[in-house]
C-alpha cells in the first residue's frame, strides 16, 4: 500500500533510522501455532483467548489525544486502505476476523479476533472456515453474527468502496469482481459469491483459487462486520458501528474525532485489546507538523497526554534533539515503507542503462534533503527489513554517494536520450529531483525532471504506456507477507492494466510465474526465503528500480502517555496498549 494515498501520499517527507522496535508489548504464549514459523517475524496463533495480557504499570483512566496533521480519508471499513486509518479503526473499535498482536521482541502474532482461530483451510487453501467467538456485540448491544461479516465483505464489492483493499473480492469473484457482483446496495438481500453462513457463528469462504494468505487478508478491514439494517450506504458511513473497546462519540470531519468506552465490549471475547484510557480524541486541527512537534516538546498541560502522529520535518528536529526530556519521549524505527525510483523497463529497455542509473544515484544527497537519519535509512532492497521474507543483499555495492565512474563504464558506446523523471509535486521533491539530475549528470545521464500533479500522480504513472522513464515512488506491505510487496511490484499481471502499482512495468514471464507459484504455496514459511532470492535475482538481472531508503518513523509523545510503540505492521505509533501514566 502507499503510505498515505491520494491526497497526502508520502513522498519524501518522512522519517529516519535508529533503534527499531521500541515496543512495549507483552505477548501471549504462542502455543499451537502454525503457518510461518522459521526465523520469520510472523507466527500464527490459534488458541488465543481473551482478555489480552495486562500491560505492566497500566492503569485505567484519562483521555489520550492523538495529534495529526490531517483527518483519515475514510473510516468506512471496507473503503479504508491507509495504514494509520486501518490501525486506528482496528485497535479501537472495528474488529476483523483475524488480527495481529505485536510482541516486544518484534515478533508478530496473527490470531483469531472475531473468529476463534486464524482459519481452517481445506482444498489447498481454497475453502476457509471461521467460527466466531462468544459475546461479541455491536455497540448498540446487537449480537454480531456471521451474516454481519458476510454483509461487510459483500459491501466491499460496491463501487463506492473503490478505495479499499480488493484481495478477498478478487479471490472470491475473480479479477473483474465488480462485474461479477455489484454489492448489496444494488442487490438488496444478497451476499457476495463464494460466501456461506451455515449458522450464526460460522462463515465459509470458497475462493476461486488457492490463497494461503487468506488469514492475512482477513485482517484487513474488508471483514469488519456491518449491521445491514443500520448501513447508511456506500460513502456515507462516517461513524461505523464498533465491536471493540471504544466507539465513536462524535466526529467533525477534518477537525476532531472522539472515541469513548464501549460498554458492549466484553474483554473476555478479545485476546488483543485493552481499554485503559477512558477515551481517545483525534485532533486534526493543526496541519503543521512542526507546531505539533513544538507542542509535544514543550509538554505543557493537556499536551502531556498527547500522542504525535506526524514526523517532524528537519525544521523542528533540533527542538527535540536539544531537549533531554523530549528525546526520551521519541518513538522511532524503520517502517514497512520503502522508497525507490521505479525505472520504466518498457521504455528504458537496456538493462545496462538501468544498472548505470543505480550506480549514478546519490542516496546521501537525497537523504540529506529529506532530513537525514531521522527520515530514512539508506536501502539496497525493495522489501524493507520489517517485512517477512526480507533478505539482506546489495546487488551492486554502490557507495552511498554513487559511483559515476562505474556508471560511465556501463554506458560506454551507448547513445543516450534524455530521460523523463516524473515526480509528485510538493514537499522537498523538487529539490530531490534537482539532486538526482546533478548526480546523473556526473555519469553522463541527462534527466528531465517533470513535476506531476500531487493528486493525480499515482494515476498518471500507473497508466499503461505513460511516458515517464523514472518515477520516485513509495510502497509498503498490505499485510506482513512479501506477496504484497514483491508480489505486486514485480508481477507481470500488474503490468497489464491501467491503475498499476508495478511502476517499473516489469513484465518477465519467468518472474511472474515464480511469484504465482510462491503465492499458492500452502506452506508460506517455506516460500519466504525464496522471495528474498527472487528479489536479488530481479535486481541483478533486470535492475528495475533504484532502492533509496526505508522510511523511518520518528514521533514524539507527551510525558504522561504510556504503552506506545511503533507498529511494524502499519508504520504508525500503535494505540493497542496505550494508557495514561497516572
Amino acid at each position: 500500500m502507499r503510505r498515505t494515498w491520494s491526497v497526502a501520499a508520502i513522498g519524501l517527507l518522512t522519517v529516519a533510522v535508529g533503534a527499531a522496535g521500541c515496543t512495549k508489548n507483552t505477548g501471549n504464549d504462542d502455543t499451537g501455532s502454525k503457518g510461518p514459523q522459521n526465523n520469520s517475524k510472523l507466527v500464527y496463533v490459534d488458541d488465543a483467548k481473551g482478555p489480552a495480557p495486562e500491560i505492566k504499570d497500566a492503569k485505567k483512566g484519562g483521555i489520550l489525544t492523538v495529534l495529526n496533521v490531517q483527518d483519515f480519508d475514510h473510516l468506512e471499513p471496507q473503503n479504508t486502505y491507509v495504514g494509520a486509518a486501518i490501525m486506528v479503526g482496528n485497535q479501537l473499535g472495528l474488529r476483523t476476523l483475524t488480527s495481529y498482536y505485536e510482541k516486544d521482541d518484534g515478533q508478530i502474532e496473527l490470531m483469531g479476533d472475531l473468529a476463534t482461530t486464524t482459519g481452517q483451510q481445506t482444498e489447498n487453501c481454497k475453502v476457509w472456515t471461521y467460527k466466531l467467538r462468544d459475546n461479541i456485540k455491536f455497540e448498540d448491544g446487537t449480537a454480531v453474527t456471521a451474516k454481519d461479516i458476510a454483509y461487510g465483505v459483500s459491501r466491499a464489492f460496491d463501487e463506492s468502496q473503490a478505495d479499499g483493499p480488493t484481495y478477498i473480492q478478487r479471490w472470491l469473484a475473480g479479477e473483474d469482481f465488480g462485474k461479477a457482483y455489484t454489492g448489496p446496495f444494488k442487490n438488496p438481500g444478497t451476499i457476495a459469491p463464494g460466501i456461506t453462513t451455515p449458522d450464526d457463528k460460522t462463515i465459509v469462504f470458497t475462493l476461486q483459487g488457492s490463497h494461503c494468505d487468506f488469514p492475512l487478508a482477513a485482517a484487513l478491514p474488508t471483514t469488519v462486520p456491518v449491521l445491514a439494517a443500520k448501513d447508511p450506504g456506500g460513502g456515507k458511513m462516517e461513524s461505523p458501528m464498533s465491536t471493540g473497546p471504544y466507539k465513536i462519540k462524535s466526529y467533525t470531519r477534518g477537525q476532531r474525532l472522539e472515541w469513548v468506552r464501549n460498554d458492549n465490549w466484553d474483554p473476555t471475547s478479545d485476546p488483543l485489546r485493552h481499554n485503559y484510557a477512558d477515551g481517545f480524541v483525534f485532533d486534526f486541527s493543526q496541519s503543521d507538523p512542526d507546531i505539533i512537534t513544538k507542542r509535544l516538546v514543550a509538554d505543557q498541560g493537556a499536551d502531556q497526554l498527547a500522542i504525535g502522529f506526524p514526523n517532524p520535518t528537519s525544521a523542528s528536529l533540533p527542538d527535540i534533539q536539544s531537549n533531554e526530556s523530549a528525546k526520551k519521549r521519541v518513538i522511532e524505527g524503520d517502517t514497512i515503507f520503502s522508497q525507490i525510483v521505479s525505472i520504466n523497463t518498457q521504455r528504458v529497455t537496456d538493462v545496462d542503462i538501468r544498472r548505470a542509473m543505480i550506480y549514478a544515484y546519490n542516496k546521501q544527497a537525497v537523504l540529506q534533503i529529506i532530513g537525514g537519519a531521522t527520515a530514512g535509512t539508506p536501502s539496497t532492497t525493495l522489501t524493507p527489513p520489517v517485512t517477512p521474507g526480507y533478505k539482506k543483499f546489495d546487488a551492486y555495492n554502490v557507495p552511498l554517494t554513487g559511483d559515476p565512474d562505474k556508471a560511465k563504464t556501463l554506458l560506454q558506446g551507448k547513445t543516450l536520450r534524455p530521460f523523463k523523471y516524473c515526480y509528485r509535486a510538493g514537499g522537498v521533491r523538487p529539490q530531490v529531483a534537482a539532486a538526482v539530475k546533478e548526480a546523473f549528470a556526473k555519469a553522463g545521464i541527462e534527466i528531465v525532471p517533470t513535476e506531476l500533479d500531487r493528486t493525480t500522480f499515482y494515476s498518471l504513472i500507473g497508466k499503461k504506456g505513460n511516458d515517464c522513464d523514472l518515477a520516485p515512488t513509495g510502497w509498503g506491505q498490505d499485510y506482513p507477507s512479501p506477496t504484497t510487496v514483491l508480489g505486486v511490484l514485480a508481477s507481470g499481471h500488474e503490468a497489464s492494466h491501467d491503475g498499476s502499482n508495478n511502476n517499473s512495468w516489469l513484465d518477465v514471464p519467468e518472474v511472474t510465474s515464480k511469484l504465482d507459484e510462491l503465492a499458492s504455496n500452502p506452506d508460506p514459511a517455506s516460500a519466504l526465503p525464496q522471495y528474498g532470492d527472487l528479489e536479488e535475482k530481479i535486481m541483478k538481472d533486470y535492475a528495475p528500480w533504484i532502492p533509496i531508503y526505508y522510511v523511518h518513523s520518528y514521533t514524539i509523545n507527551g510525558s504522561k502517555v504510556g504503552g506506545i510503540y511503533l507498529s511494524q505492521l502499519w508504520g504508525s505509533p500503535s494505540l493497542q496498549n496505550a494508557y495514561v501514566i497516572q
Partner: protein
Amino acid sequence: MLRFIIKRVLAALLTLVAIDVITFVMFFAIPSSPAEANCGKNCTPETIARVNHYLGVDRPFMVQFAEFNRGIFLGRDVDGGRVLNGKPVIDHCHIPCLGYSFKTQEQVTDVIGRALPVTTSIVIGAAVLWLVTGVGLGVYSALHRGKFGDKFAIGVSLVGTSMPVYFFALLLLSIFVFSTGLLPYPQYTSIATNPAKWALALILPWIALTFVQAAGYARYSRSQMLETLSEDYIRTARAIGLPARTVHLRHALRAAITPVITLFGLDLGAFLGGVAITETIFGMHGMGWASVQAASDLNLPVIMATVLIASVFVVIMNVIVDVLYAFIDPRVKLS
C-alpha cells in the same frame, strides 16, 4: 439617501454576478482532472465517469453554470450515482447550495458552515481590538505629537507593520504556550457551547492580528488626525472656547476617522473571507484554512465557494462603507 443606497446595492449585485461568472469560467478552464483526483485507489474508467457526472463536469458549460446558480437560490437535487436498497439515492442540496465536496463526502455548505463561524470569531474580535487600539494610539500620538508617548506609539506601530503575522503568531505561541504554559494551545470551541473557552482559544489569534493590523491604523489615524487638527475650523472651535475634549473627539476625530472607516471596511471584508496564515498557525479551521486545503486537494466545489464567499464579503463591506461614509460625510452622496 434611499436612492443612493439603492444605487450602491444594485451596483454591488452587478459586481457579484460578474464575480460569479468569472470564478466559474476560471475554474472551468483549469486544466485538471478533479475526477481522477477524487476517484480512489482502485480507479476505473467507470468510476471516473461516475465522478465526472457527480461533479457535473460532463455537461455543457452553460448548463453547469445555470445549475450551480439555481442551486444557490433554489437548492437542487444531486444524483451521486449512489444506490441503497436497490434504489438510487438522490441527495438534496439545500439553499444556498454551493455544490458537493466529493473529497469529504458532504455538501459544500456544511464545510462553509463549519469554517465561517471560526473565521468570523477570529476576525470580528480582532477587528474590534485593532480598530480601538489602532485609532486610540493614533489619536493619542497626534494629540501628544513629538512627545515620548507619540514616539513610543509610533515605534511600536513601526514594529507591528514590519512584522509578518506568521512570525508574531509563532512568537506568541512560543511565549504563552510552549515556554510558560500560561495558555493552553488554542482549541476552537463554539461560542454557543462555552463562551469562556471560545474567548480563551481566540485570545492569541486576536492579539496576533491586532498587533499587526493596529499598527497601520495607528499610523494612518495619527496622520489623519494631525491633518484635521491643523484645519481652520478646529482653530476656530478652540478659539471660541470649546473644551479640548469636544474639539478633539467631536470635531477632529469625526473628520479624521472617515478614511479610516473605509480602510476598516475593506480590511474586514477581505479578512472575513479567511485569514489563512493566522488560522493555520493556530490550528483554526476557518475559511482561509478551508481554501488552502481545498486548493491542495483540487477540491473544486469548495475552492469555488470560498472564492465566491470571500468576494461577497468584500462587496458587501464596500456597500456598507459607502453608506456609512454618506452618513458621516453628507457631501458624499452628492457626488
